[in-house]
């Protein structure tokens, strides 16, 4: 049996009707991911309210838990949480026979358990009880009998809170979690014999059960000479003088006992504590950190959960990554996944629901196990739910690594194909007063492959019913069509040679002449449409590549200068060249080029040739260009408005898409013109 759907109405961020929270779940492990305040904890708390938890830590419902649709609006009157359980075993169907819902017919016939938890706010004035006691209803419409307490207790979940204090949970003390866990462990209860004080021959301690050992030691304490002495003195020296002759007061000193077995066992187990050792040698107690203790704690809970033979095995973990370093996080995650696949003796599998902020964890899980929580809605990322194709899923399972996984935790995502974009776009955005960090934008460099695949994670297959993930995603990609004269300038063709015809040629590069008529627009549209839908938008470079477009639209001189610095990078780092000299030489060379009377495409192609022909590193040049721009801002030679006018429009639009729009149309209009040399050489 597993929870196959969670529906929540009017609880904290979740509204009602079409604003209700609906989350379909698969058996096994599910990770709820998303930025803070998206509603992950509210989902876990909803489950805790309905199912209760084994640590008997009661979650109390507060009036502020009732949803408020708008800041001034009245709070909702009633919270509804509906859990649908499917995949019931025969034992499950038997246990919940009177509560079941029979669904479907013939081959599609299924039997579900639907539990609807309803809590009402007490709107009566002056009442001290602000929330009325909740009801657990059953049946598809909540019209079945109320779920009996005994049946409810079968559903109890194991819950591990975030930032848990594992050390405390595992230490001795009244009601310690360790004692609870041990008490439910079969081996503790069933190994060994009870203590019998009258046994002859006397007991062999090795054969005793845990409780037997406790009773044995209590017995020994009673026999201890020191204790007997103390008792004697108390009785003879103090109580006797205080007693009446015919009603003697007598003291007995011993370990409190005599109660029920379960109670004595619990008191005994509460004296236990759990600590980690480095080796199997039990005595080498040496303190481990929080993280390790956390693992230990989880191991204990899993031990209990896996050993049980009745009840519904649900494990809720908030932030399993807490206190764990990245490799441990991955170990833990794969262990949890294994646990979820194991079948218990009673045919049940553990269902695990975790919330996480860890890209490490997220990157290690299949998309099928991930649910993105955004804006109080759930977006499962599994097959069929997104616009990802089967091959996309296969691809992403291989390539969605830790650095890319932070896209799950962003308020907006900027997906780029190269190092130059990765370096330049954040700097440009910042200079345009659109700081990516401040807007919570995750920048993901996919390195030339699969740009659209990453973006399609955010595209729902059925936005009508599912809703749209309200995370703006911008894919930045190149048009990759050079101006007609460029092949000879950037060394694709020897001077004088004709452009080979395709076929038979298999040349990869394209020039504008390859796209007669509306061909260019068709190509642009095709690139855009790989991933442009819902909140995802693909921005195709206006001309050719980032560097060319930068040069083409107004930063020609600076790109040239950056390329020159990149070419001299080794010497500059080694101290054999001076930056000012390099810049001076570059500016001189640029001056000559610019003065040669080329048109803008030809000039820009010559600038771009620095990368293609001279093999300047695009990444290093991007770094220098970023520096140059920042310096220009510092020197006051450039401001946001002026810079925006010099930038290729697609880059500006991409930044606006993932942050906020630029409110004036000026930048875009100015970008159409081509200023000759906007920046004073400095």
């Amino acid at each position: 049996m597993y929870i196959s759907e969670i529906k929540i109405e009017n609880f904290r961020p979740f509204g009602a009707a079409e604003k209700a929270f609906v989350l379909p779940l698969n058996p096994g492990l599910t990770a709820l991911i998303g930025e803070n305040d998206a509603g992950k904890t509210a989902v876990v708390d909803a489950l805790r309210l309905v199912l209760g938890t084994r640590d008997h830590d009661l979650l109390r419902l507060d009036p502020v838990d009732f949803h408020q649709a708008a800041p001034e609006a009245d709070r909702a009157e009633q919270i509804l949480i509906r859990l649908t359980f499917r995949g019931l075993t025969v034992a499950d169907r038997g246990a919940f026979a009177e509560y079941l819902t029979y669904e479907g017919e013939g081959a599609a016939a299924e039997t579900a358990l639907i539990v609807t938890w309803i809590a009402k706010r007490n709107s009566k004035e002056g009442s001290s009880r602000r929330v009325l006691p909740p009801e657990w209803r059953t049946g598809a419409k909540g019209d079945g009998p109320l779920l009996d307490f005994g049946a409810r207790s079968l559903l109890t979940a194991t819950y591990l809170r975030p930032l848990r204090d594992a050390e405390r949970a595992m230490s001795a003390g009244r009601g310690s979690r360790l004692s609870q866990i041990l008490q439910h462990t079969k081996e503790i209860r069933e190994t060994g014999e009870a203590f019998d004080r009258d046994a002859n021959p006397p007991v062999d301690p090795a054969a005793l059960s845990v409780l037997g050992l406790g009773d044995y030691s209590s017995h020994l304490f009673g026999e201890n000479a020191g204790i007997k002495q103390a008792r004697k003195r108390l009785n003879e020296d103090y109580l006797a003088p205080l007693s009446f002759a015919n009603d003697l007061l007598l003291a007995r000193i011993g370990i409190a006992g005599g109660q029920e077995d379960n109670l004595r066992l619990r008191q005994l187990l509460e004296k236990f504590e759990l600590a980690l050792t480095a080796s199997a040698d039990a005595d080498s107690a040496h303190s481990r950190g929080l993280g390790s203790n956390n693992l230990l704690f989880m191991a204990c809970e899993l031990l209990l959960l896996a050993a049980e033979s009745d009840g519904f095995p649900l494990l809720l973990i908030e932030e399993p990554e807490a206190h764990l370093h990245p490799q441990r996080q991955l170990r833990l995650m794969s262990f949890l996944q294994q646990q979820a696949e194991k079948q218990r003796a009673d045919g049940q599998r553990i269902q695990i629901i975790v919330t996480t902020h860890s890209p490490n964890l997220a990157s290690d899980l299949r998309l099928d196990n991930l649910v993105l929580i955004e804006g109080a809605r759930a977006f499962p990322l599994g097959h069929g739910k997104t616009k990802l194709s089967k091959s996309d899923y296969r691809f992403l399972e291989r390539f969605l690594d830790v650095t890319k996984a932070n896209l799950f935790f962003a308020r907006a995502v900027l997906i780029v194909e190269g190092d130059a974009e990765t370096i330049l776009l954040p700097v440009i955005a910042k200079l345009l007063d659109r700081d990516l960090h401040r807007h919570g934008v995750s920048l993901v460099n996919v390195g030339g492959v699969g740009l659209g695949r990453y973006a399609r994670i955010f595209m729902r297959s059925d936005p009508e019913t599912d809703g749209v993930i309200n995370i703006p995603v911008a894919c930045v990609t190149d048009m990759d069509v050079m101006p007609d004269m460029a092949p000879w300038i950037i060394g694709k063709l020897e001077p004088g040679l004709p452009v080979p015809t395709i076929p038979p040629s298999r040349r990869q590069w394209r020039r504008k002449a390859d796209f007669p008529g509306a061909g260019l627009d068709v190509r642009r549209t095709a690139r855009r449409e790989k991933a442009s839908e819902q909140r995802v938008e693909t921005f195709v470079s206006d001309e050719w590549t980032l560097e060319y477009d930068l040069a083409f639209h107004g930063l020609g001189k600076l790109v040239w200068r950056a390329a020159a610095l990149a070419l001299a990078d080794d010497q500059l780092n080694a101290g054999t060249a001076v930056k000012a000299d390099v810049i001076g030489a570059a500016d001189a060379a640029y001056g000559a080029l610019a003065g040669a009377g080329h048109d803008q495409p030809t000039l820009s192609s010559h600038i771009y040739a620095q990368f293609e022909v001279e093999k300047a590193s695009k990444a290093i040049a991007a770094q220098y260009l970023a520096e140059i721009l920042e310096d220009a801002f510092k020197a006051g030679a450039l401001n946001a408005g002026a810079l925006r006018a010099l930038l290729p429009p697609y880059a500006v639009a991409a930044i606006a898409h993932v942050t906020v729009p630029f409110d004036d149309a000026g930048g875009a209009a100015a970008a159409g013109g081509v200023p000759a040399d906007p920046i004073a050489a400095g």
Partner: protein
Amino acid sequence: MFDDLIREQDVPWAASLMGLGPNGFAPVDGDESRFQAMRRLDSVDFEACPGSGKTTLLVAKLAVLAVRWPHRKQGICVLSHTNAARNEIGTKLGNSAAGLALMRYPHFVGTIHSFVNEYLALPWLRSNGLNVRCIDTQIALAKRWYELPYTTRIALERSHLTPAAMAYDGPDYTGGKVGKFGPHTPTGQLIIAARRKFSEQGYFCFDEMFVWANDLLDRRPEAAHDLRQRFPLVFIDEAQDNSEEQSALLHRIFCAGDGPVRRQRFGDSNQAIYAKPGLAGAETDPFPGAAVHPLPRSYRFSQSLADEVKGFGVTPQALVGAGPPPHIAAEPKMPAIFLFDDASVQSVLPKFGAHLVASFDAAALAAGTFTAVAGVHELDQNGRVPHAMGHYVPSYDPSCARRETAPDRFAQYLARARFETAGSGNTERLINAAAAALLAASELAGGTHGRIARKSPHRRMLDYLADSDARAHYLAFLELILSGRGEFASPDWEVNGLPLAVEIVKVLSGTAALGAAANAFLAWPPVPAQTDQEAIFARTDNLFAYPSEAPEVHIRLGSIHSVKGETHTATLVLDSYYYNHHLSELKPWLLGAKAGGSMVNNRGRQVFEGSRTLGRLKLHYVAMTRPTHLLCVAMRKDVFDAGELDILTGRGWEVIDCCAAAEPAEP
């Protein structure tokens, strides 16, 4: 999973818990039947004679099981026929803390009907999107009946059909007692449409729940296995009373095919009597089956009484009379027969009272239970004397005694509440009976309230009437009922009660005028002509006090059905009439000329009595096995000739002639 659940050392503990002392179930004179019955947990049928303490035995077993039961997802299922039997088990289980747990999840203790509803029919109907509002045969049938056009109803009535024709026995709403109006006829189609309409609105007859339960098992055969998983151990009390429908369904759920559950049935095939004449016992899986465990030892009556009555058993059991129990300090008495004629029929009860006063001391008269029962209790005034209880006691009110059928008039709701309140002075029953009756009236008038609700009827009334003027009417109405302790004289009802009730029902149902069904429901029934009689009978509770001016003994009057399972100090069995006079027909058994329900003919074949005679035997076996100390019967004097009376006297009967006493001054 059942090994070692009931251990040898548990038997004395359970016996003490039941108040029988530690040796309560111990072997007596080499008879281990009760001890072994305690320990057995295999599938078996306990054939338990009257007074053998089978309910005590069942509860004792349950009490031990409750302590040892280790499962959280599986439970014990205990099925009874009546809510009274369920409550008895519940009360007795309540004596131990563990026993209380048996009344809760995951166990089930309740009637067969409620089990079928809770675990099969209701989940299935809910799953099909049907909102079950009300399971009440009368309301469901009335709603469906008045859905038919007037002319159709007239046509049906001409064919001697009643609203009962509106009940179905197939999940496609077909079947039922429709005479010539089959589904192929236009009228049949109207009937089916009305059944469907109100079923979809959530109104069902009690027996239709079995239709839906069977439908679930047809469509989802795994449901039976799920329930076997849930209830691996099933006890069925009073198994002899299972109808064919019940027996077949229970067999289908728990026994048919692979993996049957452990099932223990308790009953007495000699006491198989049914609520309505014409109902037959189970053909499927009849009680007792192949594995029988006899419990022939009666702790109720003495050996001499046992010898007197065992011939009435259809399958005579070797009854061992180990009674009477010691709580009444009196010796067993000789059985007595009261003889009467048309004129003296009403003097039987006073004579019986006098006989009791003569036979028992004051302490026994105060502590004992004294009853007079008749096989027929609905009186046909013109029937042959004695037709029913009403001939013996004209003020007898049959509606009070009928415990198991749903009341079909407002007055009956109140009558039953009065009967159940029985002088305790608690108002709860009366208030809720009045509220439930008003809700029923509203349903009949077209309102939709539903009866599957968690609140008491009174609370629901207060909710429904929240702010309307009718709330004041309702409270005034309750005041009226309470001040009269639930009794109304007919004119008083017409003047004071009815107008209030009508106003309330109008508001409840939201209708301007109540229909025929609701008006008939609210009308006060005509009172039997008895007002000239001396008011010596406490009319409301069917108690006969003797002597009337200074009562020394109270005799409870009722039908044989109503005293099933009871134990009395003395029981008077009155002759009554169904096709013939019951006891007169059984005279050969009374005289010892016949014994049992069959005989071996001269060809060595077993020949059974006719089914009507078998029914009479069972009915009167039940009646005659009630008393601990004194059995009396009352019959017409002209049934016997002198020789036969001598035989009776010779068999130890005392003959008391009422005829002379009633007509002292014969002209």
